[in-house]
């Protein structure tokens, strides 16, 4: 990819646990993550994989019974006036510093359900203006002008009239646009989108994603997507992190993950989503259920569901192996060890990925293959 990438977020060995009545739940177990300026990463995984918890920690929004046991979340930026580079560890900040410095101002978040993230008793104009007036001490007029600008940016026509509306007067897609406008109101550098489209209808989903992409280009935002929808990932991400049971099991560029996956869990994930050409008699599924993280995980957490598990998987948690000939592609699986038997991805998946690759070749009709737009 690009040279001179500017790192903006650096997460190292993050461990997070929750105290529950059922015992201590180790929700995030040693996550490493990098985010560079202007780029988009996606965190993919099932529910309970720790993907949301990781980003909540970045925002300093962990629930009361949750705690960061170890690790660091470094945020890098250049000072607004002097331009000198600065670094801060978000894990070490107090609640007050988080509120005034990080949340909303440098890192903003878009949640799944727009209805619950908007205040039903306040006009949307007020909701967009408020964070600006709080964080940047802007006057009402300035904030108003900026709010209008933002509404136009997120594709809302008739912005002046909409400013006076209440959330319930708008459609779901419109509300999510407002949520994005609010997130952008303080000019953050990082935008975290937690399942931004799952609550929306299919026809609106694509529109919202395209909108976020558009804004990202205009504002040089870095975006983190949290999702279980591989369609969304395929559309937006530059880099993909696959999470399972609180660990990142595979990371790489979008092409590496989608066309050359190495971890059996990623294989399962890619196989289980039918694309429009799937007509197999049975969808491939990963057997069993995810482990209960309230218990100590011995060895590789995925081993009990992995038909390619090795004996060592039952004993030792695999480290991140680098995939040869790639700087970005890493896999946490003992199958990558030189001594391991060579295992190829299931034949059906191989065929499907090849077909996908072909379909996506540049000489192919670029827009869409099955339907004209």
């Amino acid at each position: 990819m690009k040279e001179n990438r500017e790192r903006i977020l650096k997460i190292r060995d993050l461990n997070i646990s929750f105290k529950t009545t059922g015992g201590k739940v180790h929700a995030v177990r040693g996550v490493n993550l990098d985010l560079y300026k202007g780029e988009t990463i996606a965190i993919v995984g099932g529910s309970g994989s720790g993907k949301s918890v990781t980003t909540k920690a970045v925002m300093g929004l962990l629930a009361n019974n949750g705690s960061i046991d170890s690790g660091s979340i470094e945020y890098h930026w250049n000072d607004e006036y002097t331009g000198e580079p600065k670094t801060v560890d978000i894990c070490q900040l107090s609640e007050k510093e988080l509120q005034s410095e990080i949340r909303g101002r440098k890192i903003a978040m878009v949640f799944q359900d727009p209805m619950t993230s908007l205040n039903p008793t306040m006009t949307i104009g007020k909701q967009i203006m408020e964070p600006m007036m709080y964080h940047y001490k802007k006057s009402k007029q300035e904030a108003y002008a900026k709010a209008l600008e933002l509404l136009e940016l997120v594709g809302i026509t008739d912005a002046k009239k909409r400013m006076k509306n209440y959330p319930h007067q708008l459609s779901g897609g419109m509300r999510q646009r407002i949520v994005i406008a609010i997130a952008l109101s303080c000019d953050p550098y990082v935008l975290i989108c937690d399942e931004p489209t799952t609550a929306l209808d299919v026809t609106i989903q694509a529109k919202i994603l395209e909108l976020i992409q558009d804004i990202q280009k205009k504002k040089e935002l870095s975006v983190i997507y949290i999702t279980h929808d591989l369609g969304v990932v395929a559309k937006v991400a530059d880099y993909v992190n696959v999470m399972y049971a609180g660990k990142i099991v595979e990371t790489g560029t979008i092409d590496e993950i989608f066309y050359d996956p190495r971890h059996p869990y990623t294989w399962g994930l890619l196989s289980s989503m039918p694309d429009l050409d799937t007509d197999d008699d049975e969808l491939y599924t990963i057997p069993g259920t995810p482990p209960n993280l309230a218990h100590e995980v011995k060895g590789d957490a995925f081993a009990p569901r992995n038909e390619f598990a090795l004996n060592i998987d039952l004993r030792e948690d695999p480290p991140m192996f680098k995939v040869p000939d790639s700087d970005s592609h890493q896999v946490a699986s003992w199958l990558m060890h030189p001594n391991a038997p060579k295992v190829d991805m299931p034949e059906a998946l191989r065929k499907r990925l090849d077909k996908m690759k072909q379909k996506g070749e540049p000489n192919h009709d670029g827009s869409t293959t099955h339907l004209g737009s």
Partner: protein
Amino acid sequence: MTEMQALQEMKFQPKDFEFAHESQELEKDEVMPARSAWKDSVSLFARNKGAVIGIVCIALITIFAIVAPMLSDWKYDAIDTSLQNIAPGAQHWFGTDNYGRDLWVRLWQGTRISLFVAVAAIFIDVVIGVTYGMISGYFGGKVDSVMQRIQEVINSIPTLVILTILLMVMKSSLFTIILALSFTEWIGMSRITRAQVLKTKEEEFVLASRTLGAGSFFIIFKEILPNIYSQMIIMVMMSIPNAIFYEAYLSFVGLGLPIPEASLGTLINDGFNTLTIYPFQMIIPVVVFSILMLSFNLVGDGLRDALDPTMKEM
């Protein structure tokens, strides 16, 4: 690159890189540890200190109220003018009153009556309130509208007016007081029940029952009731101190139990007359009364947190 070094130094066992299992044994389903919701609630409740203290106090007071009058040599209504207004001592632990009645026995007898009145009144409330709320909420539509209007009319008459009228018309007795208390308290119970039923009957598991052809009776008793009983328990716990209070209040203003019966309210009322001369006659029942009220409230709070944790974990 410490990780890579560690990897190189790692000792592998000979069979490490062989496949661990046959694919057949993969298809197993794990479930979360067996722990019933009931046990969860108990442990949550036990962790709440206030609630535990509350329940201990209630238990102690109840035991005393039952046992103390039986074990004592004195009788709560035995008048002995030679023993008037004795201060607390070895003979009479809590002293005697204006008529020479032993206050230790009278206090626990009074507590017994107060508790009995409260529990009986609340029991009637629950039966009427839950039934009323259940029918109103479950059947909805016109039935609901009519029942709600009736309830509003009853509710719009101030409680005290009803109580006073009732006690004036009927002879004041234990039964009358219980009736009077039941008459007003059931409305709150029926409201809560109705709200819970309205919420629960739209849940998917109730719809599922309906698609299976379950009758109203089945749905109410098997599907809805088990899911709202925790709210009922909380409501009961919160209502009992209310009933005790009303009973005491009625007795205090002189509408309560006939002489020589004792309740916490009548004791406080009697003590109040001689407060300046014999303060112990009023202070002791007030203390017991306060502890009882506080305990019920603490337990109610604890139960609410334990049975209905609105703060979901994670």
